[in-house]
């Protein structure tokens, strides 16, 4: 019988749509987390994702910091404020129906999750598999213990504290998955409930203990502690060999102990060549056997109060111990493992969060060492670096605040983590350095829908990144919510299924071509003119993100596709190219289909909306947010599959959107306005006029530039220079209320929008033609 091998991704898939994920680790690679683990976590309901690492591991992980995308944005990663080793490898996943607990020996690295020989144990609870109360309580006390690390041990107040509260609150509502049976055959042990060794449920009369661990701190201290608790026990020891040449145990000394039966190398059949980083203990008594899968090495620090550790211990059949603990005689190396010393500078524990206007910074340094002087603060975002020097920091307390504009030419980070580095001299004239990620408070603490919407906007403006489809829907859902509270995501599954069914139907249905043939040059004209408070703030943030000037974000023009399949340089085979092309076409199609259906639905809402005092002020921003999003998706889809037949021309969408806001909205002859309706006929007035006339709502100038771009583009495309000049000027006049000509910056901004969202490469219009048209239609120009 072989020991089971499980992909840890299955754990994350088991708890579908988790609301909370908490992971603890000693060392970590956040690039590994973002590229290998995070994709397996469904984020549609994810309210918090927190990784807590040991200080040493955290500091090492910062090497990857400037390259990361999601740290501080999608998940929060913090160093545990603990003086000993923070060593538990626990993953807790909580959805509204299930709790999953994964505990083991592997760190959050490729080695720990995949490569090494590591053991994990896993528990899943739901209403069909309720948790014994003691297990549930252990989980709660683990989360509580994490919270207390900050509340008791330091002045640091990271954003994750707020998230821990949410987790604790949600866990407290899980009474339905608890049963009261006192079955204690499985226990979740952790150092927050006391020394690990004291919590072991094993009997004093235990006759044999199996110890498999890579670290013994170079002594038999850990074994002695086990011996103290189990005085009759004899040991079988399985130390790991490090890098093929070192060991962390005085082998001769241990082997010669009278209570040691065997010192051998553990046989792990399916991971023979891999480093045995596992920590597994077996306890055998006359009447019971236990198997303990844990993060704890066999050291005093791990068994005692110095480290924080965790593990799952199970009562097992005695035969099972033979399966897990098979030794083979090897010649152990004589070299002992050496421990590296710390760096030159004393460290500063820091946490930082972005509250929108600046950085809230706190430190755990004692006040006697404050204030810090000659402070250098650096922000690293991707390849960019900002630096300021301050005479003092933390002048009065262990907390301080630095405005973003203190960093010259700071631009809000888009799709990247922000790493803060600090160098200073403390009050005792010692050099100190520290670093941490800056947590984005809004993103980390907002609800999943809002998070998704912001992620999508960021993905849309970035070259070479494809937005997640559920994130895409989040923007439209947000817009719908703002306008009328209806959620698009509600019926997403059913409608998606319906979409695919419809597609099949289309393929089966025999459709004849129009004769003589009419080539689809601008593709089909979709019937888009159907029409769609903190949320508004988010909407504004999304618009800001989308309309960030091109030159500020190096966005790639869409005429060239950042695909990898163009022949030549690539080393890919023909088959790979084919696969990629197929995938890109599929992605483009599904992305556009999703956007199109949501856009239609919102357009329908706008077409039918009767503005009132509550929603009138939201209509312009929401409409423009939706339009920009749709155009950005269109561009993305076109980048992916330029020859795709599914993507309509930009001009078609522009004209439909302009009509939606400037034309009368006819509801059909059979429409009868309900009682109390402001409108008395089936011809609803144009939204633009209605908002102005009835509610005195003028479009904000920033948004007006988007509308001017639209009007100018339509004029350029559809009419000659002289045709419909007045009509275009009138439309422009409705949105551009400023009694002045457009400034050069405003013209450039419109040009940016045009190039970014609208200008089709095959339209053949030059930038100068566009700007000329724009100038001609603005009110001031018209008067001259």
């Amino acid at each position, binding site marked *: 019988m072989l020991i089971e091998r*499980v*992909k840890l*991704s*299955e754990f994350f898939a088991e708890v579908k749509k988790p609301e909370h994920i908490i992971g603890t680790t000693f060392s970590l690679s956040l*690039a*590994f987390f*973002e*590229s290998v683990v995070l*994709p397996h976590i469904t984020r549609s309901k994810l309210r918090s994702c927190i990784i807590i690492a040991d200080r040493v591991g955290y500091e*090492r992980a910062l*090497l990857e910091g*400037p*390259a*990361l995308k999601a740290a501080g944005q999608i998940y929060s990663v913090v160093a545990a404020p603990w003086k000993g080793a923070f060593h538990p490898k626990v993953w807790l996943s909580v959805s509204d129906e299930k709790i999953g607990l994964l505990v083991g020996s*592997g760190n959050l690295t*490729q*080695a*720990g999750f*995949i490569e090494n020989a*590591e053991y994990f*144990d*896993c*528990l899943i609870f739901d209403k069909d*598999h309720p948790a014994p109360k003691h297990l549930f309580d252990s989980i709660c006390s683990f989360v509580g213990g994490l919270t207390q690390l900050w509340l008791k041990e330091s002045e640091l107040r990271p954003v994750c504290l707020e998230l821990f509260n949410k987790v604790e609150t949600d866990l407290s509502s899980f009474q339905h998955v608890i049963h009261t049976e006192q079955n204690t055959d499985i226990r979740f042990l952790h150092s927050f409930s006391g020394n690990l060794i004291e919590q072991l449920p094993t009997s004093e009369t235990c006759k044999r203990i199996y110890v498999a661990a890579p670290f013994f701190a170079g002594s038999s201290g850990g074994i002695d502690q086990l011996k103290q608790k189990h005085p009759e026990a004899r040991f079988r020891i399985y130390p790991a060999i490090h*890098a093929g040449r070192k060991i962390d145990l005085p082998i001769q000394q241990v082997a010669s102990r009278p209570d040691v039966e065997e010192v051998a190398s553990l046989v*792990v059949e399916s991971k023979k060549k891999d480093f045995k980083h596992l920590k597994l203990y077996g306890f055998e008594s006359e009447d019971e056997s236990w198997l303990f*899968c844990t993060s704890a090495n066999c050291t005093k620090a791990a068994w005692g109060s110095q480290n924080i550790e965790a593990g799952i211990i199970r009562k097992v059949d005695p035969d*099972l111990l033979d399966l*897990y603990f098979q030794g083979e005689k090897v010649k152990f190396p004589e070299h002992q493992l050496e421990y590296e010393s710390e760096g030159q500078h004393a460290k500063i524990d820091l946490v930082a969060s972005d509250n929108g206007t600046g950085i809230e910074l706190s430190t755990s340094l004692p006040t006697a060492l404050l204030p810090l002087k000659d402070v250098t603060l650096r922000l690293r975002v*991707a*390849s960019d670096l900002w630096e300021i020097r301050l005479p003092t920091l933390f002048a009065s307390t262990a907390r301080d605040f630095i405005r973003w504009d203190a960093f010259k030419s700071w631009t809000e980070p888009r*799709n990247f983590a922000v790493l803060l580095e600090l160098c200073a001299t403390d009050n005792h004239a010692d050099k100190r350095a520290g670093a941490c990620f800056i947590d984005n408070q809004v993103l980390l603490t907002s609800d999943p829908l809002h998070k998704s919407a912001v992620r999508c906007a960021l993905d849309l403006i*970035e*070259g070479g990144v494809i937005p997640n489809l559920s994130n895409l829907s989040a923007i439209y859902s947000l817009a719908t919510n703002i306008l009328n509270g209806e959620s698009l995501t509600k019926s997403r599954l059913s409608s998606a299924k319906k979409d695919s069914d419809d597609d099949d139907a*289309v393929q089966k249905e025999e*459709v*004849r*071509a*129009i004769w003589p*043939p009419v080539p*689809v*040059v601008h593709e*089909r004209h979709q019937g888009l003119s159907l029409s769609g408070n903190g949320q508004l703030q988010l909407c504004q943030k999304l618009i800001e993100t989308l309309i960030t000037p091109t030159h500020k974000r*190096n966005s*790639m*023009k869409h005429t*060239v596709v*950042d695909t*990898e399949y*163009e*022949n030549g*340089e690539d*080393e890919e085979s023909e088959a790979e190219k*084919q696969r990629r*092309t*197929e995938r890109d076409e599929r992605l483009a199609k599904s992305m556009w289909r999703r956007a199109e259906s949501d856009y239609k639905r919102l357009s329908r809402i706008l077409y039918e909306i009767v503005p009132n005092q509550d929603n009138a002020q939201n209509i312009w921003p929401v409409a423009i947010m939706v339009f920009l999003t749709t155009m950005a998706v269109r561009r993305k889809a076109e980048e992916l*599959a*330029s*020859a795709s*037949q599914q993507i309509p021309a930009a001009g078609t969408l522009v004209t439909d959107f302009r009509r939606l806001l400037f034309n009368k909205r006819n509801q059909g002859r059979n429409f009868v306005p309900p009682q109390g309706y402001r409108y008395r006929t089936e011809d609803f007035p144009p939204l633009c006029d209605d908002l102005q006339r009835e509610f005195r709502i003028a479009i904000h100038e920033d948004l007006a530039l988007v509308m001017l771009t639209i009007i100018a583009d339509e004029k350029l495309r559809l009419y000659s220079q002289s045709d419909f000049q007045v009509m275009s000027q009138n439309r422009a006049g409705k949105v551009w209320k400023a009694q002045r000509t457009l400034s050069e910056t405003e013209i450039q901004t419109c040009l940016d929008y045009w190039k970014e969202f609208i200008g089709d490469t095959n339209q053949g219009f030059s930038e100068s033609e566009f700007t000329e048209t724009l100038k001609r239609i603005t009110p001031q120009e018209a008067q001259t």
Partner: protein
Amino acid sequence: MKETSGPFLTDNFSMRGGGIDFLGLRYVSLRMVGENLIPELNNVTRDVGTFFLGTWLPWKFERITNQQTYTEENFQQIQERMEVALGLAMHEPHEVTKDYGTTRNRVGVTQKITLPTQLTFKNAGRTKQNSLYAPAIYGPSLRALHLVKSYSVYGEKQKHLRITTACDDSGTDVIAQTVDRALKATSSYDRFIGLPPSNFTTSDIKELAEHGLDPSVFRSEEFADAWLCFQEKLLPDNPNDPGYGRTTTTRLVLCLLRQQEGLTSKQIRNSLYTGLLPTGEPVRIIDQELVTYRDYWALFMLRQYQRHPLETFLWCFEMALKDGCRSIDAILEYWLDRSPEVTLACETFGDIIKSTAGSCWSGDFKGCAEKWSKSVGGEHDDFEYVEDVKGDAAAQHCLRMLSGWFLRATTFVHQKGFETQIEMGGSDRMSIGWFYRWLDGRKQLPLRTFLKDIFSDLIFSQHIRVALSRFDGQAQRLRFLLADEGIAPTLSTKDLAKRDIPYMPDRLDTLIELLSDIQVLQIGKEGKLYLGKRADSMSQSE
């Protein structure tokens, strides 16, 4: 995952490895080529004859069908028949066509089909993804050159159907008629374009090939009328045409060849880059428009030569990882051990620049850069590109290339008018300007620090950033990351330090080949280029 009955081991769940361009530098080059230099072609659209056949098929289909028979199924049947036959026709040179040389990009020749049989993709084991009209092959170029109008037509109920249509201008008409006339002379023509399914034999294919189904046939002068029409599409006169860059590049090539015949395409690139012919003489261009486009080419090559040493440093990084280094410091030491010459003579990157500049050094970097640009051409011993640099001296070569690049770039970054190209890609993709400033700010740093910054910022961080940004949920692009013991290769990286140093083809060879097909250029032995018989059909105002 069911709850397990005890501790379990872990299994691999990382995605397969894949991707190219691990530092994210290629995009800017691609954009430069696509926007200004050689738009709308790609590196596989290498045969005029294939363009002709791709035009003829939809043109013909519209003429052999009526309202009832103009269907997706019929189009697909005829398209597959033509494409499978095309693949067969290009398999080997035929007696009649061998005089014209072989077709350069033999689309579909890997198909497997035994004749006689019906010519379908299914029978040939092919899919539509390697069709002539596929996005990665001739599809976009056929449309961009106004030979194909659309890949779909309107059907009833506002549906659209996947039927390709040819453009309806006279040039397209002439090209399609030319092909049609040629193929009509074959005995299987009627079956070839017929709607009923039909079996084809080897001799049918041979005959079709000799009459034009082998695209090389259209290199024959008897098709000169069609060449002219193709040339008008390939090289548009209108500066507002998105494809106008092809015209200016062609004019630049002709301009250089008029000054020195027998240049290779590589020499042409370097002449455009340095402004110096292989003889060392300056390139003479009078036409202001061509001067601008020469600058575009120079900036593009500047980007190519920026990328080369950086990709080589990536190879260095991987090589050190492969040999067991697990930290940036260890990688640095590894290369200082392998290339001890790096720190022997020079202490800073600035020293390396001075050393590379040699007699061009005049006391200041700007003055030195001007001299460098005036005297160091592509054939010069000190030229800033060394082709194959893998090996012990890799780091040393890279530093020398960077120093030459820095001097060359100095002349561009201080000129006005190139801001768009210079800053294209921003910091994310290490634009020319960003990289220049990065080097400039580190000129005086000790060489060890300088190299460490390269490995840390430009290789490690940049690669991880690019790989994470381009992560698509399908393939793992990360080649290395932090592990328990330091930096380690990812499990999905099977070719650590085994890849060739990437170099993005720029379509110039494709354009040259198309121009040679229509005799504007002539390709001689060893790729040497000469003015073709029809070179004068292009404007000589240079």
